């Protein structure tokens, strides 16, 4: 590459990181992928299909936000999918079996996720067990607990007020999409423009730097796992209200897709870098990929393979970048 191009590229890169907090390559990939799908399927370019993509992305997107916060702080949350399943079941049980009013059932759903996150965070920060192990354990425990609470059966028949959160369409826009977009904007602001967000990145970058600057690292870490759990709970709410039931098997392997979306969006697997806007592009790439494969009638088994392959490829690109930069 000639020198001027190199310099222009660097400027575009630094502009994107500095101002928009997104990675330009992932935006290009999203556009190319969209163009390819539009070329392959006549149904792709339609308003209703775009709403489908956003609707399908909303649950994964909320989990991907959680993954971005935890990963960029140098942590890891493998329990996202299981906690989603657990909180959906808890919410459905509270609403259906206890006949609780809608706000209480919603609070119970998100609260169940936050509680699981609190357990994760306490064991990680107080007992010094690595996040990988703790959240892997929670992946099993939360799933098991969801099956115990529901006795292994799907809990049907949520009250109408709750179903509206998953199936309502004010102004033609699905409620989950509205909830997802509002959450994403709020979380983007939190990560990019507040002290809480700056400290999250600093802890992921160098725990030592954060600690010596007087940041209470353990308390911050704990709060991040609670936030992650609460967002998984919100994902559980979106999922359960959309299918009008608490399914104990909901969200299996969702953590894989969520972490992949975050990494495609430019989150550093080892912490210190990440943005919600970038992650949203990553989540849309995953959404478009799945939607496109559906439109092309590709068997869902292959979709799993595609997601796994994309994850490895995204980390490869990320590491390639890091190695290139450290050589400079």
């Amino acid at each position, binding site marked *: 590459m000639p020198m001027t191009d190199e310099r222009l590229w660097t400027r575009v890169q*630094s502009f994107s990181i*500095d101002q928009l907090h997104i990675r330009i390559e992932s935006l290009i990939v999203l556009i190319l992928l969209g163009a390819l799908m539009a070329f392959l399927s006549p149904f792709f370019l339609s308003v209703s299909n775009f709403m489908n993509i956003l609707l399908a992305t909303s649950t994964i997107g909320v989990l991907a936000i959680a993954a971005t916060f935890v990963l960029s702080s140098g942590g890891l949350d493998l329990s996202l999918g299981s906690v989603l399943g657990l909180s959906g079941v808890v919410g459905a049980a509270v609403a259906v079996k206890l006949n609780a009013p809608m706000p209480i059932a919603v609070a119970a759903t998100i609260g169940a996720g936050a509680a699981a996150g609190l357990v994760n965070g306490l064991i990680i920060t107080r007992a010094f067990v690595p996040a990988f192990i703790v959240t892997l354990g929670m992946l099993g425990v939360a799933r098991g607990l969801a099956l115990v609470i529901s006795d292994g059966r799907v809990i049907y028949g949520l009250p109408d007020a709750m179903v509206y959160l998953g199936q309502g369409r004010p102004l033609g826009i699905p409620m989950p999409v509205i909830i997802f977009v509002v959450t994403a904007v709020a979380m983007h*602001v939190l990560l990019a*423009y*507040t*002290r809480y967000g*700056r*400290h999250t*990145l*600093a802890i992921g*970058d*160098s725990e*030592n*730097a*954060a*600690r*010596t*600057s*007087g*940041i*209470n690292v353990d308390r911050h870490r704990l709060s991040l796992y609670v936030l992650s759990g609460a967002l998984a709970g919100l994902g559980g709410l979106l999922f359960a209200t959309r299918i009008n039931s608490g399914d104990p098997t909901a969200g299996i392997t969702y953590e894989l897709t969520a972490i992949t979306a975050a990494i495609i969006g430019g989150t*550093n697997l080892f912490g*210190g*870098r990440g943005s919600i806007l970038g992650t949203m592009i990553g989540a849309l790439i995953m959404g478009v990929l799945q939607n496109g494969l559906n439109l092309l009638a590709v068997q869902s088994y292959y979709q799993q393979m595609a997601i796994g392959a994309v994850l490895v490829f995204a980390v490869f690109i990320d590491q390639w970048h890091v190695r290139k*930069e450290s050589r*400079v």
Partner: protein
Amino acid sequence: MSFLELNGITKSFGPVGVLHGVNLTVGQGEVVGLVGDNGAGKSTLMKIVTGMYTADEGTITLDGASILHNSPGERRNLGIEMIYQDLALARQQDVASNIFLGREPVRKVLGMSFVDRATMKRDAQTMIDRLGARLPAINRPVGSFSGGQQQSVAIARALTFGPKIVIMDEPTAALAVREVQSVLDLIRQLKDEGIGVILISHRLNDVLSVTDRIAVLHQGRVSANLTTSETTMTDVVSAIVGGADMAEAAAHESRG
């Protein structure tokens, strides 16, 4: 006179005793050298001052008030800053983020506090200019800078918030000759401004040229408390190694 006062500081890590009743004082505008062999307990002692470690026994007072129960963040706010040997920088963050880490200025919008990036950048640039440091760009990640440039950022972080005591752990170990001189000049400048400085260094020439007093740590105890103007390289080296006649080693240090 003495502003920071440490009395009878004792610290063990499990069965390993590191500090055995250390006393140390630093006055305003006083530069104190803290020297000693590797493992003598210098860094541990300083981490007890900044609050990273908790002392088993002993008292620490700043301007007469005990700071024993203050968190590291509170001690920074009281004016105790430390420049760490490994610099303790967040390498993927830019200059302003590092300088203001943990103390970001905020602006209230609709009752919520947002980090004021514009003020951060402006003040960071002012501080970097005041230090006379040359950085490629203030909005680049500090990990892309050279060692000396990273050192400048670490120093700027310690000096931006009006410190009263600055602890420097081996600030010249990784620097070129010209950069060493500017760090020593900076220490003299801090002294003139009435800031107390504790300088940890293996470069005894630097310590002898810039300090008022030298405290020598030997196996967790202060083995000598020397007034720099009345001391020689031989005295210092001999105190560091534990009292033996080390004239030859001292001569070597003088030459080096």
